[in-house]
């Protein structure tokens, strides 16, 4: 599992991962000194690529930046006990919306409503509003202090990442399967209590990677993923493609 997360080091340094992978990777690195060395070196390397992008900015930019710093208060040095980690939290990034992603809206009842959107949707402003809402929700979960990130390999390659917070009583689930399902099939999430699975959302048909918010998930024993006909099934179809234990 650890090595699986670590394989993201190149993509992480290139800012080519999504927010959840970023969180998972940063937690991983905190526990692994050797990994940190590789990370630092590769970050240094990728930054060198900026050397070839020289382009002189308009002169007014300098004036504006100098004026802006005159009215911008600086952060104090980090406290010795809380190094890099703290400053990084403020950098948690905006959420990546995968093409044809499942847009998740949390309804007041605590159930999760999935509005499947694709790029052909006419009402762009509705998409933007939904994406913003969802993004804010995801950010609030990822920023919770009791966040626990767990990962599991996916059958056929890929990673299932579950970032859950007990205080928010919700989890952000990121599925990245190396092989996308056929266009008439979809991945479906199941929250599992004991041996009883309950539907926790269906991904878009044919989508191999997607992100979802699952409310109430921290109360479950596990999260499972199966491959179902597009639109989902009432009960899971074997085999289980991935499973993350939450206990």
């Amino acid at each position, binding site marked *: 599992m650890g090595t699986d997360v670590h394989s993201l080091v*190149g993509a992480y340094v290139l800012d080519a991962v999504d927010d959840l992978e970023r969180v998972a990777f940063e937690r991983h690195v905190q526990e692994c000194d050797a990994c940190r060395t590789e990370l630092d070196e590769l970050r240094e390397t990728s930054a060198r690529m*900026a050397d070839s*992008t020289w*382009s002189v900015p308009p002169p007014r930019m300098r004036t504006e930046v*100098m004026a802006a710093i005159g009215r911008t208060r600086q952060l104090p040095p*980090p406290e010795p006990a809380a190094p890099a980690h703290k400053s990084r939290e403020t950098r948690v990034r905006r959420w990546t919306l995968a093409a044809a992603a499942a847009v998740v809206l949390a309804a007041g009842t605590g159930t999760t409503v999935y509005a499947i959107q694709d790029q052909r949707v006419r009402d*762009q402003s509705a998409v933007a509003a939904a994406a913003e809402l969802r993004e804010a929700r995801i950010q609030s979960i990822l920023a919770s202090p009791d966040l626990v990130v767990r990962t599991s390999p996916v059958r056929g390659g890929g990673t299932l990442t579950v970032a859950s917070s007990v205080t928010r009583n919700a989890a952000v689930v990121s599925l990245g399967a190396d092989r996308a399902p056929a266009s008439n099939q979809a991945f479906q999430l199941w929250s599992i209590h004991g041996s009883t699975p309950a539907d926790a959302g269906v991904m878009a048909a044919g989508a191999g990677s997607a992100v979802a918010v699952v409310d109430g998930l921290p109360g479950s024993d596990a999260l499972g993923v199966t491959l179902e006909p597009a639109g989902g099934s009432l009960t899971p179809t074997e085999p289980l493609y991935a499973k993350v234990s939450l206990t």
Partner: protein
Amino acid sequence: MTDYGTARRPEHLAAVPTPPADVGDLLRAVARGDEAAFARLYDLVAPRVYGLIRRVLRDPAQAEEVAQEVLVEVWRTAARFDGSRGSATAWVFTIAHRRAVDRVRAEQASADRTLKVGAASVDTPYDEVVDEVSGRLERQQVRHCLDDLTELQRQAVTLAYYQGHSYREVAELLGTPLPTVKTRMRDGLIRLRDCLGVEVMA
């Protein structure tokens, strides 16, 4: 503010093209609120910050806006720079790259990303001034080392870094499985690291 003589460094050195190592000294002075040091830091890094962001975003107006945010962020968070984790220039460009990619993703998220055709091929007049400066050798070295990668490594690394694509998008663009793309990004960067002779003191 643009008076170099007020910076920490003696004036007779300030006139010399400053080697990259000095960015670290400047950044430490900036962390103490030294605006003159920031002005010098600006002159050293702004063309690359702006150039990088412009390359990722394509749109010069947007690039200018994001570059300004980044440079103010450098001022604001200078005290958080940790020299044991890497160089000051890398710290600055890491912030710049992340902000640029953030902007790309935010636009994708609001589904209003429009194709900025044309902007890519038209250089601003400012570019003509540029090419003669001290960074030239380094630029050549990076290009040379990128050429040294395998085709797939180079594509994976440059599509992500210069165009702001996620590794999933890169996999799709190249028609290559995800694990392969992840691996090529990593071993491509390792090869680049060795070619450039990058080291980070622990």
